[in-house]
C-alpha cells in the first residue's frame, strides 16, 4: 500500500471537513470511517455558539468567541482560522450544489419538533426560518404514522414565541404506509420518487393556499439539492421550512452525502466500515494506524493523522468507573477525582455538564498534549467532539466546532 500524506480517522462532520481542507491543499488523503458519525443525530445546521457560559443567548456568535476561555476549541483554532473555516464550508456546499446561507456573526433561530426555537448560524435554504418570522399565519404539515413528529406539539410551542404567527393550522398527508412504523427517512425516500411527490402535493393542496408558510418535518428528499423543495414551491407557490427533529435527521444525512461527494471529487479515498484499533508509533511520531474491517487487519501509513473520532457517543472517548481514555492512541483524558463531580444533578441543568467537556487537551496546533502541555505526537491532530473544553449540547456549538477545528487541522498537516 502506498503511503499517503494524511489519514483522517472518523467520518463525521469534523473528519469530512478536515479531509476536504487537506485535499484542497493537494494532500493525498485517506479517510477511515466506522459509520456516519453523529451527523445523523443533529440536524445538519451549523450551530456556532448559541449560549454563553451563564446560559444567556448569544446574538453575535463570532464576537462572543473572543470571550471564551483559552482552552475552548474556538480559541485554540484562532479567530482567523475560524472565519476562514466557515468561508471554506460555505464554498464546499455551493460547489456541491446544495448552498448553505448565514453568517457566524448572526444567530438565527429555527423551529424544532418540540415547538422550541434553537439558535444556529448556517442553514440550508430548506431550513431558513425567515418566512415564518414574517408571516401572520402558518400551516404545519404532518404525515400519518410518522412517529417522531407531532404538529400539535410544535404549534403549542411556537404559539408562545412572541414574534411568531399566532394562527396555525395542520394538514395531514397520508403516505400510505399503514401497517408499519414510519420514520422521517421513509417519508424522504417516498418524496424522492415522482409519484410520492405528486401524491404529497395533491394532498397538501387540499389544506394550503398560495403564499402560505408551510412547516414540514425534515423529509424533503434524501438527496443534497433543492429539487423537492423547488418542486413543492412551484406547485403550491408556498414557502416551505423544514423543522429540526429526532434522529435519523435527514437534513444531517444530506450534508453528509454532500461532503462525501465533495471530498471524493478532491481525490480523498474513503475506507468504510473500518475501525481503527491501534496506532503504530515511533519516537514521538505516529507512522501508521491499523484498522480492523469486515475482513482483515490493514495498516495505513501516513505522514500526519487527524483524529476525528467524536465523543462518548461515537466511541472517540471511552469511560470506565473513575477514568476515561481515548482508545486509538491511548491519549490521556482528564476527569475529576470523584465520580459525583462528573455530572450535574440535572441532565438539562441550564449549565455545562462536566462529562460533556471531557476530551483531549490540545496545543495551539490542535495536537493532543500530555499533562505538561507538550504535544504527545508531533504529527497527530485532534478535532471535533474529541476535544475537551466545551459542552456542545449546552452551548449549541457542536457542528461549528467540527467545521472550524476540522478545517484548521486540514490546513496544518504537513
Amino acid at each position, binding site marked *: 500500500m502506498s503511503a499517503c500524506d494524511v489519514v483522517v480517522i472518523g467520518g463525521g462532520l469534523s473528519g469530512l471537513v478536515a479531509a476536504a481542507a487537506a485535499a484542497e491543499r493537494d494532500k493525498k488523503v485517506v479517510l477511515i470511517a466506522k459509520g456516519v458519525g*453523529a451527523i445523523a*443525530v*443533529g440536524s445538519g445546521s451549523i*450551530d456556532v455558539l448559541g*449560549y454563553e457560559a451563564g*446560559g*444567556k*443567548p448569544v446574538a453575535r456568535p463570532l464576537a462572543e468567541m473572543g470571550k471564551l476561555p483559552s482552552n475552548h476549541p474556538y480559541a485554540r483554532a484562532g479567530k482567523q482560522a475560524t472565519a476562514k473555516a466557515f468561508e471554506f464550508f460555505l464554498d464546499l456546499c455551493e460547489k456541491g450544489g446544495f448552498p448553505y446561507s448565514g453568517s457566524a456573526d448572526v*444567530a438565527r433561530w429555527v423551529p*424544532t*419538533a*418540540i*415547538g*422550541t*426555537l*434553537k*439558535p444556529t448560524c448556517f442553514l440550508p435554504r430548506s431550513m431558513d426560518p425567515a418566512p415564518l418570522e414574517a408571516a401572520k399565519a402558518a400551516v404545519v404539515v404532518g404525515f*400519518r*404514522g410518522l*412517529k*417522531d413528529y*407531532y404538529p*400539535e*406539539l410544535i404549534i*403549542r*410551542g411556537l404559539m408562545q*414565541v*412572541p*414574534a411568531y404567527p399566532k394562527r396555525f393550522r395542520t394538514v395531514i398527508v397520508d403516505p400510505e404506509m*399503514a*401497517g408499519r*412504523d*414510519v420514520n422521517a427517512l421513509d417519508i424522504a425516500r417516498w418524496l424522492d420518487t415522482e409519484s410520492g411527490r405528486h401524491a404529497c402535493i395533491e394532498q397538501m393542496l387540499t389544506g394550503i393556499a398560495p403564499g402560505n408558510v408551510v412547516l414540514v418535518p425534515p423529509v424533503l428528499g434524501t438527496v443534497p439539492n433543492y429539487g423537492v423543495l423547488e418542486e413543492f414551491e412551484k406547485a403550491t407557490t408556498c414557502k416551505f421550512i423544514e423543522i*429540526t*427533529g*429526532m*434522529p435519523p*435527521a435527514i437534513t444531517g444525512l444530506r450534508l453528509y452525502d454532500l461532503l462525501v461527494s465533495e471530498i471524493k471529487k478532491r481525490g480523498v479515498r474513503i475506507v468504510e466500515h473500518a475501525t481503527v484499533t491501534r496506532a503504530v508509533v515511533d519516537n514521538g511520531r505516529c507512522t501508521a494506524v491499523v484498522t480492523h474491517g469486515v475482513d482483515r487487519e490493514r495498516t495505513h501509513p501516513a505522514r500526519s493523522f487527524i483524529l476525528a473520532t467524536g*465523543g*462518548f*457517543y461515537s466511541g472517540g472517548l471511552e*469511560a470506565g*468507573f*473513575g477514568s476515561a481514555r481515548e482508545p486509538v492512541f491511548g491519549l490521556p483524558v482528564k476527569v475529576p477525582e470523584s*465520580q*459525583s463531580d*462528573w*455530572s450535574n444533578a*440535572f*441532565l*438539562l*441543568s*441550564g449549565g455545562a*455538564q462536566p*462529562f*460533556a467537556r471531557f476530551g483531549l487537551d490540545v496545543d495551539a496546533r490542535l495536537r493532543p498534549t500530555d499533562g505538561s502541555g507538550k504535544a504527545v505526537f508531533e504529527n497527530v491532530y485532534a478535532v471535533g467532539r474529541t476535544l475537551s473544553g466545551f459542552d456542545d*449540547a*449546552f452551548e*449549541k456549538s*457542536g457542528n461549528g466546532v467540527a467545521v472550524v477545528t476540522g478545517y484548521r487541522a486540514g490546513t496544518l498537516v504537513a
Partner: protein
Amino acid sequence: MDSVTVVVIGGGATGTGILRDLSMRGVKTLLIERGDLASDASGRFHGLLHSGARYAVTDPRSAKECIEENAILRRIGKHCVEKTEGFFVRLEGDGEDYEGQWVAGCAAARIHAKRVDLKEARRLEPHLSRRAVSVFRVPDSAIDGFRLCWQNVASARRYGGEVRTYTEATGIERAGDRVVGVTVCDTLTGAVDSIGCDHVVNAAGSWVGRVASWAGIEVDVKPDRGVLIAFNHRFTNRVINRLRPPANGDIFVPHGPITVLGTTSSPVASADDNVPHVEEVLELLHNGTELFEDLPKYRILRAYAGARPLYSPGEGRAASRDFTILDHSTDGLRGLTSAAGGKLTSYRLMAEKTADVVCRELGVKAACRTAAEPMVEDPPRRLVTRARPFFPPYGLDLAASRLGAAFGPVVQGLQMHPEERRLICECEMVTLAEVESAAREPTTFNLGDIRRRTRMGMGTCQGAFCSLRAVGALVSHDLVADKDGKALIRDFLETRWKGIRPVLWGDQIREAEFQREVYAATLNLDGTAQR
C-alpha cells in the same frame, strides 16, 4: 366533604391490598396516596416474589409465610407474576455448613428446594459463574410491583373501592377518643380537603410512624435503604440467589428484557431520599460479579433505591421482615389501625390481617376472599385473536397482562384506528393505543404515571425516543389539558437521569451524551428563549 367508611393511607402493595380486601368484604373504602401508586418501596425493590428460601435459616416464620403467599399470588396474580423459578447457588468458598442448615430450613418451611445437577444448571443458565459448586431450584418468581398495585385497585374497583393519587394525608381528625376523618392536600394543586370516615388504616410503609404521630401515637418504623441496579439484558432466565447468609448484592431477578441486581441494606433517617450513591452501586457490582463473572461488561440501565419499612427491635437485614398490625384502641384511640413492617411477598396476608381487625371493629362479618379470586380475569380467547394483528407477537401477551380489563377497549380502538398500533416505546413494546389508554385514566398526570402503568421508558433508551413521542401523541389527542409538553418531556428525562447519574460510565455515558445531543443540542429543551 366526602365521606366513606374506611380511608386507607398509602398506595403501595399493602395499602392497595387492604383496599381490595375491604372492598371485597363490602366495606366502602377510599385509598389516598401522596404520589402515584407504587411510587416508593413497592416499585423500588428487586421485583422478587420470594419462595421464602432466602429466609429459611434466618427467619423461619417469614419463610413459611412467603411460600404460602407465593403459591397464592402465582394463582391470583398471574398477570403481574412471571413464573421464572429461582436458583440458589453456592460458590467455591461459601460455607458448606450453611448449605446444610438451609436445606433443613427449606424442608421445615415446606419450601420445595431440589438440587440441580451442575451441568444442567450451566445449560439452563450459561452465564452463571464457573465457581458454582451447588445449585438448588426453588419456586421464586418475578413480580411487577407497579402492576400488582394497579391490579389490586382494578379488582377493588369492581367492588366499589376508590383511589385518589397525588393526595397526601396531612392529619387525622378526631372527636374525643374516635377517629372521624383525615385532612388531605392535593399535591398537584395544593387544594386542601377533608374526608370523613369511621376508620383510618395507616399503610404508609416507611412513613407509618409519621402518620401515627398525627394521632399522638408512637410507632417505631425504621426505614432501611436498599439500592438496586437494572441491566439492559436478560442474562438470566431465573431468579439467582447466592446460597450463603443473606448479604448485599446477591440476588438477580429477570424482568422482561432486563435483569435487576439487588440489594444493599443500611438504616436511614428518612425514606424520602431515593437517589443511589456511587459507593452503593460499586458494592453491588463487586458482589454481583461473583455470581456472574461477565457482569462488568454488561450495560447498566440505571440504579435506584427504596426503603424497607422495618418494625421490630434490631436493625437492617438482621431484623425480622415480619409484619405487625397495631390496633390503636389499645392506645386509647378508636378507629385507627397501623400496618407496620412486612414485605411485598406477604403483602396480601398483611392486608387480610389488617382488614380482619378493621372489620371486627366495624362489626362486619364477611370473611376475606382475596386468596381465592384472581385480581384480573384472563382475556377471552376471542379477544386475543382479534387483537393479534395489532401487536408484535411478543408484545401481545405483555399488553394483555398490562391492560387487564382495559385490553378490550384498547383492541376495539385499534380496530377503528389501526395506525395507533405504532410502537411509542420499542424497548418495552408499548403501542400508542396503550399509552393513550393509560393517559385517559383519571389518575394519570404525567409521563411517569404512564411509565408505571405501561413500562414505557423503562428499557434501553431510558426515554430518549418515547418521551417526545408520548407527549406529541397525547397533545395531538388533547390528553394533556393545558400542561406544557416541554415540561412533561423534561420531567420524565430528569427522573430517568437520577438513576443514570450514579452509573455514568461505559455505555451509560454514551446514552447520556446521545440524549443531550437530541434534547439539548437539536431540540433545545434546555436553553432559554431568544428574547
